[in-house]
């Protein structure tokens, strides 16, 4: 069904050299035998399946992947994710271990195998899709790897023939202290170690969980997962690249192409995306540089924090500026007003310096300059909570990001009090939420508390549906909802934006 090598001669005339060629040299469709529950998906499937299966299997896998992505958006811990995913996986993509002795074992694995390759086709077209697909498939693989039976997992890993050098006893003795310190264990357990080029375990290196010596990483046995997963990601990325290159030559009839296109489209809208409807708010006429101060009381904490810092220091560092500019763009501030806003805010800076060092970046954020005019579109989209919660934390002098995440608890409480949140019970629960790393829950809690009356009103009226009051996952949604709730019943725009704003 799906071939990776299109530039081949007639299959019958080819010499049987390696397994891939051998597989295709034999034109009979062959069922693969799935020995292990886990799969590195190296061999493409060759059997025929019906169009209907093609579509349903793919859609089922897609459902699993989007749920996984949602988990990462909501910042769920690995344990929570695993728990949440169990039922979903059982429903859409069951995959039992050998010990289950199920009748459907081979059938399940076949579905897993085929659906993976179908989605590969659907998501190899653009760099973005490839990256996203590879990230989610890696998450799925990791999830399954973790809950796999230990014995079967070992067999699976052995079947991969990864080249790992074992650390000799002598070396273990020589570096015993360092090895123990690197792995973070209390040096009592005498475990086995592997020695690999450090490039193969970048995530362990990044977190300083392995010992490094002259470019070799000493990986403890229990970190094996990291190695296997890294290998999986690497092979998948390579394969996706190959698929992408072969895709234009996929000389398929019009049966598969529409299905594939449909699949990839339904994958491109992440749930926390900024929708341009957030920019147009009934009753709020276009904000101006002057009105930001007044409007800022409706901003979420991340933006209020930036605004206060901007007012206090007459300056913000790059990432803070970027985050704030995009947010302001999102609430409908025009480019001209935005430049004016920053110009006035940076009081201590000369016009020349401003024009030279800052103006370009503002215009760039709006898509006014930079790169290829055809491709830059309307600049960057405003950052979502997901983005703010996953980007690197600020370092000295920087103020960007989500304060619920970047602030020490005491400082966060102080900041909240400064913005007028003083209810002690509320602050206590916020503290608990933050302790559990449920940053967006804390933020939503604060929102609900400060708009308690209004929310109750619209609920009672029935003017707002439940969807309108769903959890906030975007700073611009926060603003929009806050502004609308505080201006209930003021249908006309003039009141807010007229004289009151000009002062």
């Amino acid at each position, binding site marked *: 069904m799906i071939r990776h090598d299109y530039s081949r001669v007639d299959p019958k005339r080819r010499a049987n050299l390696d397994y891939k060629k051998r597989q295709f040299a034999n034109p009979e469709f062959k069922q693969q035998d799935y020995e292990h529950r886990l799969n590195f998906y190296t061999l493409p499937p060759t059997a025929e399946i019906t169009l209907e299966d093609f579509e349903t299997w793919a859609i089922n896998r897609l459902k699993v992947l989007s749920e996984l992505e949602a988990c990462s958006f909501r910042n769920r811990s690995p344990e929570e994710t695993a728990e949440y995913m169990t039922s979903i996986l059982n429903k859409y993509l069951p995959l039992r271990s050998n010990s289950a002795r199920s009748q459907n074992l081979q059938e399940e694995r076949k579905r897993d195998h085929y659906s993976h390759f179908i989605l590969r086709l659907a998501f190899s077209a653009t*760099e973005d899709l490839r990256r996203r697909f590879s990230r989610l498939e890696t998450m799925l693989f990791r999830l399954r790897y973790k809950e796999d039976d230990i014995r079967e997992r070992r067999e699976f890993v052995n079947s991969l023939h990864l080249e790992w050098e074992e650390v000799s006893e002598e070396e273990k003795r020589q570096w015993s202290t360092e090895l123990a310190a690197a792995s973070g264990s209390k040096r009592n357990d005498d475990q086995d170690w592997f020695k690999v080029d450090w490039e193969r375990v970048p995530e362990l290196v*990044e977190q300083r969980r392995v010992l*490094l010596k*002259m470019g070799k990483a000493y990986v403890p046995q229990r970190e094996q997962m990291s190695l296997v997963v890294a290998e999986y990601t690497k092979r998948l990325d390579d394969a996706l690249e190959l698929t992408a290159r072969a895709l234009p030559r996929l000389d398929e009839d019009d049966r598969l192409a529409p299905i594939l296109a449909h699949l990839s489209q339904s994958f491109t809208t992440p749930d926390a995306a900024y929708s341009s409807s957030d920019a147009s708010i009934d009753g709020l006429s276009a904000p101006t540089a002057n009105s930001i101060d007044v409007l800022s009381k409706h901003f979420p904490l991340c933006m209020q924090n930036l605004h206060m810092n901007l007012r206090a220091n007459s300056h913000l560092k790059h990432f803070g500026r970027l985050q704030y500019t995009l947010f302001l763009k999102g609430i409908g501030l025009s480019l001209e007003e935005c430049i004016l806003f920053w110009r006035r805010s940076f009081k201590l800076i000369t016009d020349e310096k401003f024009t030279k060092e800052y103006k370009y970046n503002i215009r760039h954020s709006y898509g006014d300059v930079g790169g290829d005019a055809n491709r830059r579109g309307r600049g960057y989209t405003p950052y979502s909570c997901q983005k703010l919660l996953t980007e690197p934390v600020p370092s*000295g002098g920087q103020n960007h990001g989500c304060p619920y995440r*970047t602030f020490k608890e*005491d400082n966060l409480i102080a900041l909240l009090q400064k913005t007028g949140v003083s209810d002690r019970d509320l602050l206590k629960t916020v503290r608990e939420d933050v302790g559990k790393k449920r940053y967006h829950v804390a933020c939503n809690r604060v929102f609900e508390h400060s708009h308690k009356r209004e929310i109750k009103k619209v609920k009672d009226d029935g003017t707002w549906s439940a969807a309108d009051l769903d959890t906030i996952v975007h700073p611009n949604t926060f603003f929009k909802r806050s502004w609308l709730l505080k201006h209930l019943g003021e249908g006309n725009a003039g009141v807010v934006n007229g004289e009151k704003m000009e002062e």
Partner: protein
Amino acid sequence: MPHSITPESTPQEESQDSVTVKAEPETQTQDFDMPDAPAEADKAKVNLEDLFNDEDSDNEFSSSAPQIKAEQPPSSPPVPVAISSKSGYSDPEVMRAFYQRLFPFRYLFQWLNHSPSPTNDFAHREFAFTLPNDAYLRYQSFPTADVLRKQCVQMLPSRFEIGPVYSTNPRDRKTLRKASAFRPLTKELVFDIDMTDYDDIRTCCTGASICHKCWAFITMAIKVVDVALRDDYGFKHILWVYSGRRGAHAWVCDKRAREMDDTKRRAIAGYLELLKGGDQSGKKVNVRRPLHPHLERSLNILKEHFQTSILHEQDPWSEEKAAHLLQLLPDQTLRSELEKKWAASPSRPSARKWTDVDELAKAGSLSASTTTKSLLEAKQDIVLEYTYPRLDAEVSKKLNHLLKSPFVVHPGTGRVCVPIDTRKVEEFDPLDVPTVTELLAEVDEWEGGEEDEGKKLADWEKTRLKPYVELFREFVAGLLKDEKAGVKREREEGEDAMEF
């Protein structure tokens, strides 16, 4: 740096005596170019050979050298330089003379090219120029060192930056049918350490200024990062470069480092990064115990510096700043005891305050919940917070990030971005790094020693730039040697594979 554009606004300290010498440049013109051009008669000839020897003599450039020979003399008469140390750093004449006579294009070329004959490693390399009018010109590329040099002399960039090697020539990027055909392939792994990141713990200077006291931060950082890159990652070719004002850059040039993708770069940056969090996040160092061997080693290096550079020279907890120290300590009782004690004598030096912590703890101010071990760990964290390198990690994480080239002139200070010898990193003095105007004056004043008789010296050899260029040359030679061995090995392996 607007002030560096016009000579009228050269740095303050110079403007005072410039009143008296204001008229000099014109009158000096005649006198000053004489030593440079020994005799009117053979002026042209000498200069020609000079040029030939300096940049273009090698048969490596056999194809392009004759061209230069033919073209250079008319376009550059023996440079009647009106350059004294009073000239502005970015004056066109200064920059022209610098690029023509001092900038080591040849070694820069060899460094980036990894081979004596021009390859795509150089030809597809992105350069970005900052022009005198502050326009920023990206995606420049050059087939050879001579062409780069020519464009520098012509455009007189106040500085230029070096980016990655791309899959196709950066100048052709718009002619490609597919945008994906133009992507960065390799670049040195780079690090940028800048004093801005130390502003919250630096007490001696603020902003753009530096002194010997605060340079100690950079020295510490270089030591820690350098040893980690060498011992842990096995990198050999690490070039440290003074950034011209108040920081340092590192270029890790090993082939293995150059070929890393973003994930791996991020991994190394993460491995080396320790301080987390902004102004509001409280304690910035929170590491697990036992300390990772890299941190243990770093701590051992940094301990001494903490005593001298931090406690004595920076005195970070004087007066009300002691509050920050208190904030970092774990025990409530201990904190209040210390607070009381220091409130009585706010001028107590930091070194004493630091020992107070232990003394009071020993005297029993520790509550039951805090062990001496956890206090020791907190103290280690504090040492690390005040000494551990603060990298601008974003620079290291991206393959396509540009970084200022070595040996260009910093437009604000006029200092040349010279390499730092890591074997003598303690001795490096940023305030002693020659400025471009000083160097040009040295060329003019040079009279030639006995032993140099008969040899044709390049202009840089007549100045204080000499040890730095030699250091760079040595570094490049070492890199080329390894590179050559690598190529040979690959070829041999390839041949093996070809045999049946």
